[in-house]
């Protein structure tokens, strides 16, 4: 059973990660990259498994293997000229399969659907700071990224550094996913970034409402999901995702366009 302080820490952590995921998710949905969240999540699994076996931080292991996965896909693309999507389909399941070679039986559920019952103050604080840094980095280039999806040529003529922005965006997705796997596990990260952002899309009229709506709904879903987890036997990861889905369904009733 979680003690009182751990409940507070997990709620804080959930609110930060859910908020960041909803915010970056609004961009990913617009740029049709929602499933990238899922692919990245799967790439983290060997790192998560290693972290659980050797007792170091799950997000650290996730970020390490995510970076290896992304670089491998990029290198293979340079070498083979195969489409990025096909290479992701090669690397992603391979990474999942390798993880299952050494992941202990009793840690499988935690790796796949997350666990936030053992959160320390340090972990919560570091997560909060990382979420804030990621948020502000994104906020700075947010409207430029949306503008670039209207026309890349137009963006370049406006003096926007499209390549640099895309790199920052990708790094922010990687950090969000690495933080997210702790809460919802490797399997559910696509849902974390996509569902509340899509709900916000249904309710918003402009970019401001959409992105901050995604953030608020993301935090709300995480907090409610963690509370449901505390009072029922449903694990936190699936509980957060189910809450998000319910919010999405509710948003359909109030759809503005």
């Amino acid at each position: 059973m979680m003690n009182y302080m751990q409940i507070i820490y997990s709620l804080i952590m959930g609110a930060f990660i859910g908020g960041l995921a909803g915010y970056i998710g609004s961009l990913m949905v617009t740029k049709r990259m929602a499933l990238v969240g899922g692919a990245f999540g799967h790439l983290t699994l060997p790192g998560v498994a290693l972290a659980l076996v050797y007792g170091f931080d799950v997000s650290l292991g996730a970020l390490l293997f995510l970076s290896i996965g992304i670089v491998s896909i990029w290198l293979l693309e340079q070498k083979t000229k195969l489409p990025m999507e096909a290479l992701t389909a090669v690397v992603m399941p391979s990474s999942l399969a390798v993880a299952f070679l050494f992941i202990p039986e009793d840690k499988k559920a935690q790796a796949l659907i997350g666990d936030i019952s053992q959160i320390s103050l340090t972990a919560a604080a570091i997560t909060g700071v990382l979420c804030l840094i990621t948020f502000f980095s994104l906020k700075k280039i947010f409207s430029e990224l949306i503008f670039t999806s209207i026309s890349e040529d137009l963006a370049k003529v406006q003096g926007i550094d499209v390549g640099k922005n895309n790199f920052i965006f990708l790094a922010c997705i990687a950090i969000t996913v690495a933080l997210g796997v702790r809460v919802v596990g490797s399997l559910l990260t696509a849902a974390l970034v996509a569902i509340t952002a899509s709900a916000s899309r249904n309710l918003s009229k402009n970019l401001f409402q959409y992105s901050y709506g995604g953030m608020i709904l993301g935090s709300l879903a995480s907090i409610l999901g963690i509370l449901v987890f505390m009072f029922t036997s449903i694990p936190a990861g699936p509980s957060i995702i189910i809450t998000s889905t319910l919010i999405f369904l509710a948003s359909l009733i109030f759809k503005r366009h």
Partner: protein
Amino acid sequence: MNWLSYKRLGLAATKGFLEELGMPRLVLQVKNLSVTRNGDEILKDLTFEVREGEVLVILGPNGAGKTTLLRALLGLLPYQGEISWSTKDISYLPPQELLQRRDIPLSIEEFFKIKQVSSETILKMFKSVGLDSSLLERRFGALSTGQFQRMIIAWALVDDPAVLLFDEPTSGIDVGGQETLYSLLHKFWKDRNLTILLVTHDLNIVWEHANTVLCLNKKKLCSGTPKEVLTPEHLEELYGTGIKLYTHNHE
């Protein structure tokens, strides 16, 4: 001084002299421009210049390299040769069908704010293209085709550029819409001494609005005033057989 220096000095003096005589200053100079992609030559050895206030229409069949030329002029493509602009205030409108309109969560106001202009300037511009300010709150994809055209012209000109590069939309615009588009552009050209480089398929536009025409089919085939260029021979060379010539006599 050697002979070359005298020649340079003479040229510079002539240029300055021409400008003093009221000849508009050079805005763009293109020398021996070539663009190749995957070994294919898309533009070959193109040389031309554009002066302030000029409306240069780039005419040519599909695949002639018109859009490539505009993109090269904007530095969006690697090229060989020389492109020199005397201004940095350049605005660009790509073909509208290439703009992603659906599924963009941006409001029109947010779209204008990318250009870092004040709300007052935006409102003024909206008025001068005949759009209601209530549309500023609309989502980017929620304007009708006609409203979108006016809005995009307003957007291109809101920060008062010296040059506009306009790649005409080839689909989704009816005759009335096209009329609006060009009468708006004409109005801003007159009011602001705008220099316009325009890619079009429509010979009527050339007759009505162009000072200079550049016929392009990978290389420069002809250039000059519409009257000089739009001859049956040139058009046949440009488009192949089967083009009927319709001369407009405004005088």
